[in-house]
Structures are given as C-alpha cells and as structure tokens.
C-alpha cells in the first residue's frame, strides 16, 4: 500500500509518505499535540507572499539594463529574492523596473505598458536617466519617468552598481510587505493615478 519508488536506491529505503505521520523534529509537550496555529494580520501574510515572489517586468532600455543583467546573473544573484522569473508579459508582472533612458518617443509606450500591469504593481526607476533624465537634458529625452507614471523607488547612479539596484529592490520589497490591503482602493492611490491620467 502507498507509493512504490520506481528506482530503488540501495541503502535508502523509500519512505512511504502516505502512511507517514506528522513530521516534526521536536516532540510537543503533553497536551499540546497537533498541527499548531499562528495568528497574524492578513496584511502581513499577504505582504510576505507578495514580497517573496515579485515578478519583475524588464524595461531595460540602455546601459542600466546591462548592469541589471549583471545583477540577475550568478554573481549578484536575483534568484535569492524570488525574482529570477522575468515576466515578459505585463499582465503577469508585479514590478516594473525601468532601467535606462526613456525618450519622449517611448513615453506613451511606457505608459501603455504600465496600464497593462495588473494590480498590485510597483515601479522601480533604476538609474539617473529614468529618475530625472540623467546627463541627457535634451529635447528628446523624458526628464524622469515620473512625468508619465507614478514611481515607488528611485535608484540613482549612472549606472548604479548591482548592490545599489538590489538596495532599491529591497526597498520595494519593504513597501510591498508593509502595504495595506486597502491601499489600491484608497483615495490617495486613485488620486495619485488620476494625476497621471490613469484610471
């Protein structure tokens, strides 16, 4: 009865999990047996879940994108934060990471992508160009993406070191973890979006 392992590893009997009892390393004191329970607020539990697996939508435009590739690679691993799965579709993403210069030609595209991201969504502006136009104070460069979309965290640098990008990501995680569940319906949020012309 139970599951039979197809591969018999000598010396390691296959544990019949269907018959196993509760696996607990510590014996509970008498009278306190069972699964146990944990009390918290829904906000905290949902916040923990949200921050632990935030899927980034890459908007890697220029040089900061290469530093982000270095952050995602093995040396400054992003996988340890649960973010190695880059969502390429805005509908499935949580965090919009704008990395690099945004020109005025690209502004409407950025806004459209932001509007397509499903709630809850956060925006991380990586690099000087995304935050404020950077060194390119020209007629063709958007002087900061906060002219078209609301931004949560700004990471300065040209380009920022991977450690700085990780610092920005961790701040977004902090915001996500401590965000109230009603925040997205609140008047301050909708008025903030209304300021940008987003419903």
């Amino acid at each position, binding site marked *: 009865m139970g599951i039979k392992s197809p591969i018999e590893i000598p010396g390691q009997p296959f544990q019949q999990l269907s018959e196993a009892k509760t696996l607990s390393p510590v014996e509970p004191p008498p009278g306190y047996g069972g699964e146990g329970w944990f009390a918290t607020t829904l906000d905290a539990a949902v916040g923990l879940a949200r921050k632990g697996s935030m899927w980034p939508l*890459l*908007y890697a*435009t*220029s*040089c900061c994108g*290469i*530093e982000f*590739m*270095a952050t995602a*690679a*093995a*040396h400054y691993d992003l996988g340890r934060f649960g973010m190695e799965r*880059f969502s*390429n579709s805005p509908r499935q993403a949580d965090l919009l990471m704008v990395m*690099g*210069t945004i*020109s005025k*030609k*690209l502004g409407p*595209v*950025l806004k459209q*992508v932001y509007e397509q991201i499903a709630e809850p969504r956060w925006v991380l502006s990586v690099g000087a160009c995304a935050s404020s136009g950077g*060194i*390119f104070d*020209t*007629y*063709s*460069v958007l002087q900061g993406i906060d002219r078209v979309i609301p931004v949560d965290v700004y990471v300065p640098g*040209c*380009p920022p*070191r991977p450690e700085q990008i990780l610092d920005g990501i961790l701040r977004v995680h902090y915001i996500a973890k401590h965000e109230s569940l009603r925040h997205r319906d609140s008047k301050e949020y909708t008025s903030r979006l209304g300021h940008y012309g987003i419903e």
Partner: protein
Amino acid sequence: MATPTTSLPGVTQLASGPDEKGYFTLNLGPTHPATHGIFQNILKMDGEIVVDAEQTVGYIHRAFEKIAERRPLYQITTLTDRLNYCSSPLNNMGWHMTVEKLIDLEVPRRAKLLRVIIMELSRIADHLICDSIIGADTGALTGFMYVMEWREYIYEIFESVCGARLTTNIGRVGGLERNFTPDTWAKLDRFLKDFPKAFEEFDGLLARNRIFMDRTMGVGPISGERALAYGFTGPNLRAAGVDYDVRVAHPYSLYEEFDFIVPVGTAGATYDRFMVRQEEIRQSVSIIRQALVKLKDEDPSVYRAEAPEWVLPPKEAVYSAMEPLIHHFKIVMGETEVPVRQIYHSIEAGNGELGFYLFSDGGRTPARLHFRRPCFIYYQAYPEMIRGALLSDAIVTMSSLNIIAGELDA
C-alpha cells in the same frame, strides 16, 4: 483566418505578394524581451514565415551629436561611453585618439600598450555578451549565466583603473588617468590564467551543439557584396567573408606590431557571426598576452603623455605651483588653444568601424561632431536578412547582429 491587411496607417506599404494572400501584421517591440534594446519591427507574416519587415528606431534617441556641440572636447568622453555601452572603453579610447589626432599629440609607447590591453578586454566583454545572448535566444541560458561571471572579472580590472564598471570614461587625452596598480596586474593575471579554460567550456556548450547548429546555420544570411553595399563593418562583415578590420587596414595604437588573425566566415549567417566572435575573443586574449610581453621593456612609470593643456593636473600641484594653476584655469575656463581642423578617426569597436568626424573651429566645443555608428548602418539590412525566414530565426538573427540600442540611436 486573419483579415488581409497590406498596410497600417502611418506605415510604409510593405511588400505585397503576387497572389495577395492573407498576411497578418505582427508588431515586435519596441519593448520586447528578445530585442536586446529598444527598437521596433513591424513584421508582415505569412503564418510563421516573415514576408517583410519595417523598422522604427529612435526610441532611445538622446541627441548625442547635439550635446557634443555644447561640451568641451575632454567632456565628450562621457557621451562616447554610452554609444556601445557593452564595450565603453573601446569608444572612449577611440575618442581620445581622435583628440590626439586633432592636436597632434604623441602618446608614449607604454600608454599605447596599456590602452591595447584595456581595449581588448573590452572587446572580450562585448563579444561575450553577444555570444551568450545568441545562446540564450536559442534557449541555452546556462552559457549566459556562466559567462557573466567573466564579465565581472573584466569589470574589476576596469574599476581598478578608472573606478567605474560599465560606463567607464576611462583614459585621458594622452594616455590613462592613472597607472596600473599591482592590484590591476594581479587581477589581469588571474583573468588570463582562468578565463581561457572557462571560455573553452562555454564554447563547447554551443559551437558543435547539434541543436544550436541547426538553429543558427544558414539563418539570416547575407552575402559579402550585399554586406558591403549596406556598409557593414566589423564581425558581421567578416562573417560574410570580407576581411576588413580597421586594426589591420588603418592601424592605431601600435596594432601594427601585434600578431593576430582576423577570423572570417563564409555564409554570413548567424552561425558564422557567432564563430567569428568566438575566435575574436581568443585572438584578443592572445593580443593581451603579447602586450604583456612588450610591456616588459618599458619604463613602468609612464602612463600618459605630457599634455598639460588638456588633462587636469593633480590638485597638490595646482595648490602649490604656478604652471599647474594656470593650466587648470585654462582647461576649466576653456582658454586652451584648439586647432581649426576637420579630422576623421575610426577604430575597430565591438561592432565595427566606429568613426568620429570632428569639425573643430578653434572654439572650446566642436562645431560639429558626427559619430559613424556601425549598428545604425548595418541594421538597415535586417529586413533583407530575414525575408522568408521563420519568426524564431528572425529573433536569433537580430541577436547575432549585436544591435546595441545606444549606438543605434545615439
């Protein structure tokens, strides 16, 4: 069945087939994970086959040429960083050589050799990204993860010379800003010891891999004549069979003394571009080793020419002596004499011949500076290369061309 459309409003009429089937229009970009950069392709598809393509670029146009008309010559280095940002030191050195050509400054031999080391390291970094991304686009993500570690080693070497990893602003007019420290030499030695073996592992992952070869051989081909007509230079041209390398044709910075092979492909397809870049990485490692041998005969304290009117003197000298103070003032306030000349200088950058056409009218800032950007010029040929190919072939072709958006739009 898709509605037959042959044109979009605002889009030039794409090629129509003789029997007017129901083609559909697919918009690839501008923000697309597979286009490593911001440029848009509107593809006209017959099922999975690409019939025609039209490109829209300019989504990251930062008006470099106009900014350059407002910057003194030594401040334009920061702009050249951001052209092909995967290999910033190459662009920086090209610009410094342009200014040195303008003012007829002779760079000491050791500084030239140090520059060669920095430039070849940067070329290795650029080709590593391109080749690993070709692999990633065919599904082999391991190569990318493995190879980025070696880019970190190269970044550490750049950091010890100039302080920055990616957009380096490395070098000064006449040489480098500081000498290589013992730490730099140690990092360089470790890199040269460990990298070749790791590189051969990366090569073994892809070069004779049956799946990779099937995905890339004969994909996105271009013949040598068409490549020349389209102004190709660099690895893309060499993959098509034409052995034009600016380091050999118009040598600069002592390249004429180095012994290296210029690898050439045959079919101009994605596999050829991949293999040409792989071989160029090996040749770059060999060039760095030769430079290290040549450096043994040089005075180890020389790293820059004396160009007091172009390079800021050290602050201790500015506060204590008269001449450095005058030079500091002249440089910052723009009183340096700049010759009135019109010069062109080009280098072999990561993607091809990167040229700087500098019109100087004697003023502090250039009258006109034009960047001859290889990406901008050879991306025009992309529709011709993917006509009749599958969509996935189009993606792999694009990544093998190594289109860097910063250089495309500038």
